């Protein structure tokens, strides 16, 4: 088992509205191992995008990270390299740094260099009035890399090449590129400083399936070249099945199950995951579409017990009063469910 690069413990992100605090992420824990691809799925409002943005400390008011630890491997080296002071936080085994203990300035220096983002809506993620080469270059500039014009040109050409684009793209403006090309540029930007963690937040949602596959292939290739890990957030189960090694399923701000992707699709443990997989249309079996009856709970109120309980077909009495905790019930299979715990 490879070492973990990112260790998220009990992350809490609340949005403070006039009507109360919305617990978008309520005690979420997971690990991202070296060179692996972890997927994060859930319905809209399950907290997956918020979790990813929290890693970058890009939660905007009225949202706030209320608690938890985010341990990033290799952050101290990146900080030292960019002239930032070493984190005044606690060091755990292997030299990991708890991001929560860093100052805002230090976080800013970690972005792109230690954790990079490929944003949702990559169609519009590029500055319309800047050329591509300038948008690649400003990442280097603002992170303290002093490169000559020639060096920049070479690096840019190399990056574009690695994502499958012609070097001439560098002189273009974003509106001259197709959706797939823009996404590749975003990937190029994301790998430009060789980060160890890449966050991809529904990057392919606006693309057709053919381009989608090509781009995901490209992403996989550059990830392997870099030796980086990818956290892929989304709600396209089909995409997840092909693109990730492990999959985390979130529900109502909590993590329901984290398992290898093959296991989740063939033998899901958490009832929510089971219903989710069951609802996926299949090419072999024809029949009625099955949904999951009911609605997700309001995140405003404090939910006693398991958030999925109202809709769970296997609900027990215990589920309504006690909150289940994510536990490893089998090798590499983590589930937060009393039913599953008991059975094993």
């Amino acid at each position, binding site marked *: 088992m490879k070492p973990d690069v990112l260790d998220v413990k009990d992350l809490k992100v609340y949005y403070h509205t006039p009507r109360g605090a919305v617990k978008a992420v309520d005690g979420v824990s997971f690990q991202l191992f070296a060179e692996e691809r972890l997927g994060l799925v859930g319905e809209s409002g399950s907290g997956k995008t918020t979790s990813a943005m929290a890693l970058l400390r890009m939660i905007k008011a009225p949202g706030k990270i209320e608690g938890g630890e985010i341990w990033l491997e290799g952050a101290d080296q990146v900080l030292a390299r960019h002239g930032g002071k070493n984190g005044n936080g606690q060091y755990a085994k292997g030299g990991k740094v708890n991001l929560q203990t860093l100052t805002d300035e230090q976080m800013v220096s970690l972005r792109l260099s230690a954790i990079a983002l490929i944003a949702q809506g990559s169609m519009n993620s590029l500055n319309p009035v800047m050329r591509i080469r300038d948008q690649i270059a400003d990442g280097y500039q603002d992170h303290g890399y002093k490169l000559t014009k020639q060096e920049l040109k070479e690096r840019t050409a190399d990056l574009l090449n690695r994502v499958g684009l012609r070097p001439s793209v560098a002189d273009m403006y974003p509106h001259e590129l197709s959706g797939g090309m823009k996404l590749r540029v975003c990937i190029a930007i994301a790998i430009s400083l060789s980060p160890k963690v890449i966050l991809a937040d529904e990057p392919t949602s606006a693309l057709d399936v053919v381009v989608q596959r090509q781009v995901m292939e490209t992403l996989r290739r550059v990830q392997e070249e870099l030796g980086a890990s990818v956290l892929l957030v989304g709600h396209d189960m089909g995409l997840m099945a092909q693109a990730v090694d492990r999959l985390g399923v979130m529900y109502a701000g909590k993590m329901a199950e984290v398992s290898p992707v093959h296991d989740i699709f063939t033998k899901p443990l958490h009832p929510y995951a089971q219903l989710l997989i069951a609802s996926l249309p299949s090419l072999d079996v024809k029949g009625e579409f099955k949904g999951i*009856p*009911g*609605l*997700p*709970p*309001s995140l*405003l*109120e404090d939910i006693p017990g398991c958030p999925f309980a*109202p*809709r769970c077909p296997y609900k027990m009495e215990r589920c309504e009063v006690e909150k289940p905790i994510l536990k490893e019930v089998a090798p590499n299979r983590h589930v937060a469910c009393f039913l599953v715990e008991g059975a094993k």
Partner: protein
Amino acid sequence: MADVVALSGTATDYAVKKDTWGNVRRYLRRNPSLLVGMFLLFCLLAFWLVGSAVYDTSRAAALSVPDTVHPPSAEYPLGTDRIGRDIMAVMIQGTMLTLRIGLIAGILGVSVGTIVAFLGGYYRGWFDTLLKGIVDVGLTIPGMLILIIIAVNIKDQGLTVDQMGLVVAIYSWLWPARTIRSQVLTMRERTWVEVARLSGVSGPEIIFKEILPNLMPYMLASLVGSVSSAILASIGLETLGLGPMAAPTLGMTIYWVIFYSAMLRGYYWWWMPPIAIIVVLFVGLFMVSMGLDELANPRLRRGV
């Protein structure tokens, strides 16, 4: 289906309380601009209403007062001016008249503008091209100048206050037409409108039931802006001497102030009141339009 609702408690959670008055009050507290603006305008309205009930406003006509250019005294609280008018009376009347011009021009402008905007923006075709052409050309030429040309030509036929309003309206429909048209164009492509169209809902029904309600806050903001710029234009024209000469409007007062160099002669009671009222009027309109802007564009809410 009933058990679905029963299982999740969310149906009641998301129901908005029927306390509309409370909602309005809470909103006004979060949007101080709107509140302050409305208050200022209300004060002016009250000034006119109370004033015309209590005070003798006939003395706002020229040569109605024997002593000219008197500083404030017991009999004439704001003094008199060079053409024999009681300034307090002029202020009371003037506030209403200026507002009236603004309202006539503003309301007319927005109404006409909205109608043509909808006809052009929704139905497109030759009418829309023509409309766009007229509006583009019309807006390039500064409105003030158009109005000056027009006003100069009809000056000697004796302008009444209401006619002044109509003159200003000739220009004031252009801007609302343009902005509302572009909103209609965007709305038209929204999915719910397309759905309505495909469901066979008729054009006018779509306009009234789907598009119009969504544009309400926008049109309201447009109205305030329209009235505001109409008043601005009318005061500007009057200051130049192109308005209803005999009427005691605020703009004409400024005209006489300049004509008789009231500034240089230190007749502070003559020029201060109209300026003060105009300032209150514009600040009030401005704050209301700021407030409405926030209403129409939720991204501006809660400050930046």
